């Protein structure tokens, strides 16, 4: 028999009953702001897996949610309209990334299409990927170009593109990965498609 898991994203003021009433489930998981998990779980009045996430960090929420969803069955549903704005967006991104149902239950209940998307920029070319792979911390432009195996001019063009995508910070001499760049590195470099 399929075990249906419901993941509820919530913060202190959210109605914890509504998603449980509207979506059927066998198992429950609660995504709560850091430091609030225990209090929210006790308000549930039933057993639940609790995941605490950084409430103001979309990428942090996304990473944590992806980890949670990776261990749950395909029949999982996520009620994404609770929590802080960052938590809700992180949850939506995680659902899109992992191919899981994301539900908005306030007003007219609606589920996003289940799309299995990878957090990979299809538009990143080989040079950009090479620079991203070489960018393991703050690096001088020349050093980064050498590590990426690219002529300096091409590496700089790739850096510019990555900067436009918000993946890289740079000044006149050095470049470094942003939080988003680190996220891409993890998705693209450490776990290639």
């Amino acid at each position, binding site marked *: 028999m399929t075990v249906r898991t419901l993941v509820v994203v919530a913060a202190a003021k959210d109605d914890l009953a509504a998603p449980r009433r509207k979506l059927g489930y066998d198992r429950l998981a609660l995504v709560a702001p850091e430091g609030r998990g225990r209090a929210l779980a006790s308000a549930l009045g039933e057993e639940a897996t609790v995941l605490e996430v950084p409430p103001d960090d979309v990428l942090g929420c996304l990473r944590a949610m992806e980890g949670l969803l990776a261990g749950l069955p395909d029949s999982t549903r996520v009620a*994404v309209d609770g929590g802080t704005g960052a938590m809700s*967006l992180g949850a*939506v*991104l995680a659902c899109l990334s992992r191919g899981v149902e*994301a539900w908005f239950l306030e007003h007219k209940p609606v589920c*996003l299409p289940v799309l299995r998307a990878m*957090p990979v920029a299809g538009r990143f070319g080989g040079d950009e990927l090479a620079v991203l792979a070489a960018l393991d911390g703050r690096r001088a432009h020349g050093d980064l170009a050498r590590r990426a195996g690219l002529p300096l001019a091409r590496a700089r063009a790739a850096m510019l593109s990555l900067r436009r995508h918000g993946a890289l910070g740079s000044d006149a001499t050095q470049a470094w990965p942003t939080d988003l760049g680190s996220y891409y590195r993890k*998705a693209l470099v450490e776990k290639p498609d």
Partner: protein
Amino acid sequence: MTVVLATVGFHPEKVLPALRSHEDKEALVLFHDTDADGKSKRAARAAREDARRLGLEAELVAVDAFDLVATCLRLRREIRKRSAARREVVVSIAGGTRVLQAAALLAGVLEGVRVTHVNERTNVAQSLPLLRLSAAEILSPKRRRVLLFVRDRPGCQARDIAQGLSLAKGTVSHHVRELRRRGLVEGEPDPDDSRSERLRAVPSAELLLAE
């Protein structure tokens, strides 16, 4: 030149970080809710004044911020219009209801444009991960035809699809199964025949059919 499409809630000051994070911006389009008390519209007007002080013209677009499908489709139309005019488009989530924010995210993802989010606490704009998503990858031409058939004939059965589209029953079963797995089609037992199901497309299927 860049056109920024920003969502706005009750806090117009959230739009400024979204604008500052983009170079060579040319125009701003503010999506706000059609709320009864006009609070969101007032915020959008205030954000428009802020943009004018930066030398930027802004246009206001009222949407039902609780209607995910209609709002997402409206945003996608705007992205396409601006892209067709050879403008770079950036979607900036700078407030609004959760549904409005998700609609903006999904529109950006499905149209393949950059999406940024203005942090609620720090007011700093951050780029969100680009997701490689294309409706064409999810809906092959044949599957798209099946989905359109179901959308246009709610309550139809698999055999109706096979007959209407001249497809083998096995092919229809496969596509219906995949469409159900992706949450695009729902089925309920046929009261007249317990072995059959009556099918209907869910509202959010429109998001993938609007290609």
